[in-house]
């Protein structure tokens, strides 16, 4: 395997595709390579290709979660979501760009079961254990998107700039389909360069997890208030970060037998996030 470190975004994009993958902090990608879940001939290190740092509302995709969680320019919901993600070691390596593109934690997928998301026919989680899985958008794949920051960015209405276009975080994600079993609309050689995160009047992130710290979200709820409008972004409830307008949207949830509890958690957390704003 080859490791390359192109000097800028343009060279990085040119080096991507055809069996080469982008490497940022490597906290998700390296274990996936180690376990043989993804394969690459070449790794394209993004250290010089993707901006890093925070300037007002603009955040370089190479900024680490550790940098985001302490910067006062960053809205509270994003700061808190970063602070509650993973562990200190992982946060000082892991970048926000990599976090948005992290792969599912569904253990069937990670154990290389030939499930639907891997291109197979069935979702093993639905038939088997799925306590951590989805309550929305789970018709095909019931995985639960693990990113805390993505939920916060969704609630905050953040925008994403790639090497070729600009789009909202809401547009960045889409449910996987039979044709394309990916959760983002990006091309294989497309790089996330920067985020633009509007400043809300108030925002918060609440995260229910299996222990007091250092665990993926069972349900994460980000809430952001802009004037009299409140937006919510949820982590851990659908294959992608999930936006809701209010707790009433939970009436449309389609939980699996083992995930019904998540509806109740989400309902309670939305109410609590709202009252915290």
């Amino acid at each position, binding site marked *: 395997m080859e490791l390359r470190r192109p000097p800028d975004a343009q060279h990085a994009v040119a080096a991507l595709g055809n069996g080469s993958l982008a490497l940022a902090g490597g906290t998700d990608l390296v274990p996936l390579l180690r376990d043989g879940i993804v394969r690459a001939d070449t790794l394209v290190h993004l250290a010089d290709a993707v901006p890093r740092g925070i300037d007002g509302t603009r955040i370089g995709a190479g900024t680490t979660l550790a940098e985001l969680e302490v910067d006062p320019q960053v809205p509270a919901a994003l700061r808190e979501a970063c602070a509650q993600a993973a562990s200190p070691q992982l946060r000082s390596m892991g970048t926000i760009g990599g976090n948005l593109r992290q792969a599912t934690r569904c*253990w069937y997928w990670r154990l290389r079961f030939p499930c639907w998301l891997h291109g197979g026919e069935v979702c093993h989680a639905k038939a088997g254990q799925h306590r951590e899985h989805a309550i929305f958008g789970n018709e095909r794949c019931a995985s639960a998107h693990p990113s805390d920051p993505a939920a916060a960015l969704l609630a905050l209405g953040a925008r994403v700039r790639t090497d070729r276009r600009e789009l909202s975080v809401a547009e960045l994600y889409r449910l996987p389909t039979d044709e394309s079993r990916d959760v983002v609309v990006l091309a294989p050689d497309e790089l996330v360069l920067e985020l633009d995160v509007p400043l809300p009047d108030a925002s918060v992130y609440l995260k229910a997890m299996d*222990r007091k710290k250092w665990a993926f979200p069972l349900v994460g709820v980000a809430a952001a208030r802009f004037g009299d409008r409140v937006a919510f972004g949820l982590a851990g409830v659908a294959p992608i970060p999930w936006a809701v307008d209010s707790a009433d949207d939970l009436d449309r949830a389609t939980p699996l037998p083992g995930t019904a509890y998540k509806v109740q958690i989400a309902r309670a957390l939305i109410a609590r996030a709202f009252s*915290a704003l």
Partner: protein
Amino acid sequence: MTVPAEKLRLGRVGESARRTDAVPKVTGEFAYSSDAYAAGMLWGRTVRSPHAHARIRSIDVSEALAMPGVHAVLTHEDVPGEKRYGLEFRDQPVLAFDRVRYFGEPVVVVAAEHPEQARRAADRVRIEYEPLEPIVDPERATEQEPLHPDRPTMGHGYRDDPRPNVVRSLVIRRGDPDARGDVSVSGVYELGIQDQAFLGPESGLAVPDGEGGVDVYVATQWLHVDRDQVAPCLGLRPEQVRIHLAGVGGAFGGREDLSMQIHGALLALHTNRPVKIVYDRQESFVGHIHRHPAKIWAEHRATRDGKLVCIRVRILLDGGAYASSSTAVTSNAASFACGPYAVENALVESTCVYTNNPPCGAMRGFGAVQSCFAHEAQMDKLAAALRIDPIELRLRNALAPGDSLPTGQRITGTLPVADVIRRCAELPVPEAEELPRDPIRLPGGAGNTTRGEGVRRGVGFAVGFKNIGYSEGFDDYCTARVRLLADGSAEVHCAAAEVGQGVANVILQTARTELDTDDLVLAPATTSSVGSAGSASASRMTWMAAGAVREACRAALAERERTGGEVDVERVYRHPRTTPFDPETGQVTGERAHVAYACAAMRVVAEVDVELGLTRVVWIGTAQDVGRAVNPQAVEGQIEGGTAQGLGLALMEEVQTRGGLITNASFTDYLVPTTLDMPPVESVLVEDPEPDAPYGVKGVGEPPTVVSTAAILSALRDATGRELTRVPVSFDEVVGLD
């Protein structure tokens, strides 16, 4: 000018002496078994079954052998001696032939210059499997094809149970099992599979001695029993295999069975090079046995004023694919099924079955954890039914010396059940903290999920007990050797495994006390210079090592008195002899089946966010029967660590399986408690010296684990009003109460 440093008097028995391994462990200088290194060493790698149950059609190693850096690729055909080994029954293939019976079972071993070369070569071993239907439901195992048609555990004095796939079944019948009380409560309880979750993965280094023998440096719990399993498989005499203890990163029962020992030695002898094997985390989850998952049906009958009349319990343990120590776990679960309570009439049936689930064996608490979870839930239920205070109910039934257990064994040593209950109940329960609070001090922790909304508080109580030492007629002994040198110094040899529990200090404190000197050293634990110490398990090592070292020291002093010169003596210490249970009635056939007992009581304050199902254990107070504390600080450490392990089982720890495959084999998915999940523990050491034991000591490692899961569940039930019959507790049972 220099001033000589003031020489501290090092700790004697009864003092909180600082542990010799404490500072190096904290500073990272401690050498664990995975740090072992030898010039020219190769790296071993194990090829494991991806199936829970399959027939092996063929194994082709040619491609792997041709890979760069590869020195050996070995299969069962390369095992020169016995093809099977086992801790108690020789039922487990060194390398699988014909069949694999569990996910992760070793089939082939590889040695290469570099670990990555070994890993790549392992990937190129071609094994053709014919998958078979796995037995995964323990409740149906006795109706399915036998996994071990030769029934390796039968004919060892156990009850003859003709059903297929029974590892052992034990029935204890006492008095009139049909005796009726005024009230009866019943319940069904379940426990998931818990992992020992030690931080140091299985690892070791095997070094050929150039004369056909081998030295193995490994993290283990019992050096001599390792040797006695390794040597026959290699076709060697015991003295040709020397096992040396390498730094142990936690054990908790998970290192009682062999892991890399035979494989490493095979590769080393085959290549004539030192071979190191270190499991990765995922491999470690299949590289050792786990705590038995269990299902327990219980019925308690009592009089109106709360005296137990009759207890009926049925226990089903899933032993997984091989016997390991399941037969002893089966009898322990039965022995302690009724709890530390006096009851005239009882019927206890305990059965362990083979399945294709992960193999289970020893883990801290050893059958008593499962039973305690059930009997304490039952006692709370009974208290509620009778409207008697749960602590009072326990006091009314507390076992005491002189009483008999359902096995007919009379308690001849100490067992201060009522005392630990009272001392624990006296500990002041902390007041509820004011709101607002730091989220870390609320259920949900760092997730900031509540500012007090939905939070309810509960207080729980539990009592448990367990045996100390090996039981049922096992010849349990410990050897120590003491050399008194001409310069007045002394050297102590004892192969007791320091697994982090502090036995090295026990040995040193004992020797300093007996020889009345600080000028002594403890030699490395090895099979090459001293006899067996027995296992660092069953809460026995302190008792046994103190007994052996004390005897050897006293004998050495007497010898020097007589001869005047240097002396070198070895002594073997045995605890009081035990005898087996009657296979039909489960009654003792002699004075005792278990050597001695230790009990603990625990009180827990918990808060539950009942809308979210999130919990916080706020405070734990405990009183434990310790006989006599050799090192009080180390005893408190054992209580805190043991409690944390029980907390993990109560709240989060479970090995998940599907079709026999482990699905969460990582510390990302198998969660263990962090310091934030663990509350402060206030412990009272109840010292009531055990008459038969050296200095009156008892083991202390297991009782806190036995009782803490039960006590935490009691508190959660109090907070939620739910039955909570399964651990780890699931959200479904708690969430959305309002």
